[in-house]
């Protein structure tokens, strides 16, 4: 039992322990040992985190595996870890991608290896902490801790414009998160005993940063205050997502980052923003969330279409994938602000999907970049003949990203569209346009890279994906098929947590007569696929 009460701590800090181990016990010349130990720690972390999948009981307590200790009693901050269905999935995604990021870097990183793996592992701890923390101060600490390793990953091992990209990423996300801090403080003070912020009476309970406590009292704050706090949170989360027009740091950061950095950025860091909306904005500020729906949906739809159009115009494969992220995250936001179970669960599933497929795409682009040191679309052509295994893997991941039935993207997008349709037909129509555009630019990219004759001499003898590279991708491919064919376990885990959010943010929705609603996707999501 002792082990399980500390499970979250172990998962969160194991990578940090690994980083310290590498710093103190392994010489920097011994790159083999560094890689080995980094992989072992990241791998062990993933395996241990699988316990969450089995230990978490979707129908049990809202937050499980709780670990709670006083931390700064003077302000009521606690050391408080706990997970629900939303965070379990994101933690699993993080540990998996973290492991893959380490494992995929063996040949890509050829200088300052020790620092590289240390920062990668530290970053892992920061990200995991974000998904586990249920205390606002603790959450904020982890949220900010991630910035530094990412800054170094981009700034040291990045591409030609790495310095610019690194500082842009850093400052952009920092400005967002510090404004969020003001929102957190406002929330804290308003809900503390007898205190009046901007002349409003408090709600008469002890001051706390405890998210679970705030969930009970914060929703009854007056709308005027909710709006302000929502805006403060919005800036922090929207930059991280990134929502249009806060996305401009993303292409720079993605293009300059090393492959593993891009995988982590796209796979996990972007989810922090959407997670923030789902975990904090919606349940804590339901009235303001409803108030914001038109704005959020408008920005989401602009993001979907704008991201797709810009992606279509790219000549650089990595940039194309980066802009496709803007588009995909627009989907996630659209689903979320449909504020119904379908939209929200589709949104969460699509977060996972995007982590898998876009993470995979960045890995694939990285593989070819290592061989050719270019990512220009015009530099390739006919690769299907030269690198058949690579081409096959690329095909599967591309299809997953487009949302072909039997693959994960389809389930996510369909569920989101259901949710959006349920609110407003036009949202679904606009979003569907994005799907069409998405298919267009992805297939066009695939065609230009893999079909036709091999025109460039250098490409004629490119080695196919080696065993290690294949193994970095196979888990992703397997998961893409699994979610595409049998998503039920995933929906099952998230369902009760999602319903709790809807219960707060739009209670009428759940009370509406069941007949007027389409079947919730949690029941038979597989059917849409089969038909």
């Amino acid at each position, binding site marked *: 039992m002792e082990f399980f009460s500390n499970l979250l701590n172990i998962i969160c800090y194991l990578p940090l322990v690994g980083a310290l181990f590498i710093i103190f016990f392994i010489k920097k010349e011994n790159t083999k040992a560094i890689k080995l130990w980094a992989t072992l720690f990241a791998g062990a972390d993933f395996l241990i985190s699988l316990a969450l999948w089995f230990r978490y009981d979707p129908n049990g307590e809202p937050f499980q595996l709780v670990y709670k200790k006083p931390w700064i009693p003077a302000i009521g901050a606690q050391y408080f870890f706990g997970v629900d269905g939303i965070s379990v999935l994101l933690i699993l995604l993080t540990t998996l991608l973290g492991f893959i990021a380490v494992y995929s870097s063996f040949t890509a990183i050829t200088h300052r290896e020790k620092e590289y793996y240390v920062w990668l592992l530290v970053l892992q701890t920061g990200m995991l902490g974000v998904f586990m923390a249920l205390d606002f101060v603790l959450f904020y600490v982890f949220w900010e*801790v991630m910035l530094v390793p990412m800054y170094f990953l981009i700034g040291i091992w990045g591409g030609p414009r790495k310095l610019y990209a690194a500082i842009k990423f850093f*400052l952009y996300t*920092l400005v967002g998160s*510090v404004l969020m*801090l*003001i929102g957190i403080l406002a929330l804290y003070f308003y809900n503390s005993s007898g205190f009046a912020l901007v002349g409003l009476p408090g709600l008469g309970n002890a001051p706390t940063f405890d998210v679970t406590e705030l969930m009970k009292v914060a929703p009854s704050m007056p709308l005027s205050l909710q709006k302000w706090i929502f805006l403060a949170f919005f800036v922090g989360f929207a930059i991280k997502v990134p929502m249009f027009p806060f996305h401009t740091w993303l292409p720079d950061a993605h293009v300059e980052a090393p492959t593993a950095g891009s995988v982590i950025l796209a796979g996990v860091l972007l989810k922090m923003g959407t997670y923030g909306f789902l975990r904090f904005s919606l349940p804590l500020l339901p009235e303001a969330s409803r108030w914001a729906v038109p704005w959020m949906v408008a920005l989401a739809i602009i993001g979907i279409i704008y991201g797709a159009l810009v992606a279509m115009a790219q000549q650089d494969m990595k940039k194309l994938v980066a802009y496709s992220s803007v588009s995909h995250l627009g989907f996630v936001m659209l689903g979320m602000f449909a504020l119904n179970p379908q939209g929200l669960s589709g949104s969460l599933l699509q977060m996972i999907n995007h982590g898998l497929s876009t993470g995979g795409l960045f890995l694939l682009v990285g593989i070819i970049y290592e061989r050719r040191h270019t990512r220009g679309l015009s530099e390739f052509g006919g690769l299907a003949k030269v690198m058949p295994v690579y081409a096959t893997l690329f095909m599967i991941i591309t299809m997953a990203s487009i949302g072909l039935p039997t693959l994960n993207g389809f389930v996510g997008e369909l569920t989101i569209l259901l949710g959006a349709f349920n609110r407003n037909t036009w949202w679904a129509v606009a979003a569907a346009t994005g799907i069409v555009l998405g298919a267009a630019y992805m297939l066009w990219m695939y065609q230009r890279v893999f079909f036709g004759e091999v025109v460039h001499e250098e490409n004629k003898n490119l080695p196919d994906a080696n065993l290690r590279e294949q193994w970095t991708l196979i888990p992703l491919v397997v998961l893409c098929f699994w979610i595409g064919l049998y998503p039920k376990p995933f929906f099952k885990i998230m369902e009760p947590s999602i319903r709790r959010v809807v219960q707060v943010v739009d209670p009428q929705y759940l009370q509406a007569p069941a007949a007027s609603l389409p079947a919730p996707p949690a029941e038979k999501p597989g059917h849409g696929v089969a038909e």
Partner: protein
Amino acid sequence: MNAQLSVLLPELLLAGMGMLILLVGVVGRPSERVAFFLTNLGLLSAMGGVVVVGERGSETFFAGMLQLDRFALFFRLLFLLSALLVVWLSRPFLLRAQQAPWEYYALILFATLGMSFLASGVHLAGLYVSLELMALSSYILAGYFRGEVKSHEAATKYFVLGALSSGILIYGLSLIYGVTGSLSLAEVSGKLAAGPRSVVATAGVFLLLSGLLFKVAAVPFHVWTPDVYEGAPTPMTAFFSVGPKAAAFAMLVRVLWVGLAPAAPDWRLLLSWVAAATMVWGNVAALTQENVKRMLAYSSIAHAGYALLGVVSGGALGTQAVLFYMLVYAVTNLGAFGLVVLLASKEYAGEKVNDFRGLARRQPLAAAAMLLFLLSLGGIPPTAGFMGKLYLFAAAVHAGYAWLAVVGVIMSAVSLYYYFRIVKEMYLASAEEGEAVAVLSEAWGVRALAVCALATLLFGVYPTSALAFLAPAAMIVPW
């Protein structure tokens, strides 16, 4: 009388040791080790004295001149700690520069003595005398390297402007005395609260405030800082940015919130604008600095701005935030300046940002320590600087100054741009671009840095015990 004198044990130890060092220096001129040893002994025994004397249950002594409370206890310990770390950092520096240590160490002790009195002063005349004792010692220390033109210039500027600000301050005092007929903070407060608001009193408050704002280097009284900080011997710069600044904040908090609290409507709005302007100006001006000492000078202006946020907010929370921030800022800033001190560059005042180039490759530990200090200055967790700012911003939001907190928060983000210029040089500059000036691993300097680094981490991860100690100290502010 004896009981009263024993209260002064730490101060007596400091004064005695300072004079002994001067005397030994004149009479015997033994090795510099002796001076270093005696200074350490003086500071450590004074610390012991502070602990022994303790808080004595908030009594006033010497006809209402001094009050011993948790507030005084905290600041006395803080000043002694800062002085101790500065002395550790100074030794290698003095050896390298081949400067006589005797008067130098004695002056540090005297400056600390002045600050120590400031911490417990509740009488404006007493406060003024303590302030001058601290300031005069500082002027000499700024110009201690007589051969260096810059050091000369720093001392002259510091002295002339400091004397001017003292004049303004004491003019303010005289106006307040004229209106209230008293210089004791408690009586001033009572008279101000009882009587009708008078123009003369308001003028006095503003003049007094101007004098104090000069001492904390707040905009628009900050202009002397970069030049003085650049020209002074680097360990002294570290000292000025921490000791006298914290002392001025101690005085500011006590004078404003104990003595002039009834006039709060007069000065609070003004002070909030000063805080905002200080944060903005300090950070923006730091962006373009090439000299690390100047950059840190502007950054210290900015940090005074953050701390003013706590002063404006007031109340127990605001005061506690100021005190905690002073502690956090002291260890962090001493650490950052400490690295500059140990940077083995040719001229003592020419520390360029690119002297740090590639430091991470050559001396990873030194670079990691600097990274820690810079992150703390920028307010990134899990460092002490984050906890300090969290408290300040919380106090501001609590007191209804959310707009000030927003300014502070945005300016913290701006500040990271220039802090990260050093980080960039240390970690991101490629090998072809040249190498860093080495950081010397001189034993006492390294010890000082280690203390600062550990404290920066400790107060960031587990600030609880420090905060618990500070909570009663903040109670001097009535509401």
